[in-house]
């Protein structure tokens, strides 16, 4: 991937739209359904991912010349696990209420294919500043996806945003149940595909 020509701002935009983790590449899906039943939780996980993704990219890029190719996988996992442990401890102390609900999924960040893939594909081959931009962009793309899905689900499922009631009246309870999560992501993915096909002439195949 020849990202050396792209300006830093383009790298961020890339992570946010054309290579958006969830909607276009369909990896790291697990948490997108689990935590998006409310905007607060979704944003919390999104911010955690921005932190981990950016720091992992920067760290791996900084030491890329010293990593022997054969042991790079355990080293990457170690670095990712380290940063996840940090954000896990920070959140469990300072954001107790949110952590009580999504703590398990914060720890699962360690298994995110997207962070690992980015480290492998980009950070290990590029300098520190572009890696920072790329990690940040990918993280923000993830955060954006979280916000969109959570918005959809919390608004339709409870008529609230951030716990503030916006629409009174019977909400669609299914949207905040696990089933609704699947439905929401499926519909949103189809929507993104449709936009892609209609306005950009793409073939709209997200994932398989």
């Amino acid at each position, binding site marked *: 991937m020849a990202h050396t020509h792209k300006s830093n701002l383009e790298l961020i935009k890339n992570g946010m739209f054309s290579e958006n983790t969830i909607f276009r590449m369909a990896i*790291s899906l*697990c948490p997108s359904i689990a935590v998006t039943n409310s905007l607060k939780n979704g944003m919390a996980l999104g911010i955690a991912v921005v932190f981990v993704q950016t720091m992992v990219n920067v760290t791996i890029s900084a030491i890329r010349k010293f990593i022997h190719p054969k042991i790079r996988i355990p080293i990457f996992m170690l670095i990712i696990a380290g940063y996840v442990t940090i954000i896990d401890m920070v959140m469990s102390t300072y954001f107790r209420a949110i952590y009580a609900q999504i703590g398990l999924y914060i*720890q699962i960040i360690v298994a995110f294919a997207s962070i690992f893939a980015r480290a492998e594909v980009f950070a290990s081959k590029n300098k520190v500043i572009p890696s920072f931009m790329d990690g940040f962009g990918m993280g923000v793309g993830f955060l954006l996806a979280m916000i969109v899905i959570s918005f959809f689900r919390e608004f339709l499922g409870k008529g609230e945003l951030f716990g503030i009631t916006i629409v009174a009246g019977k909400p669609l309870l299914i949207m905040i149940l*696990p089933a609704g*999560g699947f*439905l929401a992501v*499926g519909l949103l993915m189809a929507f993104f595909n449709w936009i892609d096909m209609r306005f950009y002439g793409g073939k709209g*195949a997200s994932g398989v």
Partner: protein
Amino acid sequence: MDFNKLFELIIAASLINNFVFTRFLGLCIFFGVSKKMETAIGMSITFTSVMVISAALSWVVFTQVMMENALYAGSPDLTFLKIIIFIGIVAAFVQSADTIMKKVSPTMYYKLGVYLALITTNCIILAVPLINAGEGYTFIESMAFGLGSGLGFALALIIMASIREKLELADVPRPFRGLPISFVVAGLIALAFTGFSGLITL
């Protein structure tokens, strides 16, 4: 040994809190592998076995090494390292299972070996030891929980594979083709699984 509790754990992990449909873990692999029945079955077998053994291994390491006063009186509390250690255990186990299977049973390796590599980044494999550690299950209870989660995953995969094989022949609208329609299907199955939620009143 409290068989009631063990049975409850297995039912809870496989049906009530099914890891795929209720906890949303293991989705990437779930959608990737459930396209054909053979791959689904192969993955289920591999996954359940790896799950039970990893649950056992992590339990041993967690209680005998990492907890306070575990190794010797006054040994430090290393539980904050559990994320790193569990991933390490799973990765090491999968790697050794890979090598051993290649030598001992090449035919089985040929059929199931490819799934082993996929399992390492599976969210469920990490989640089960974490939950075991958090809930403080005993050794047998941890394995029961691992077995239940493996069976639940197998159930999810097989149901999904049978539906997706039929979907291949259906006329799906273009934006929905591929993953989006699978998600919608998963949502409907998840809705059905919600029916299990009152099965065991704990």
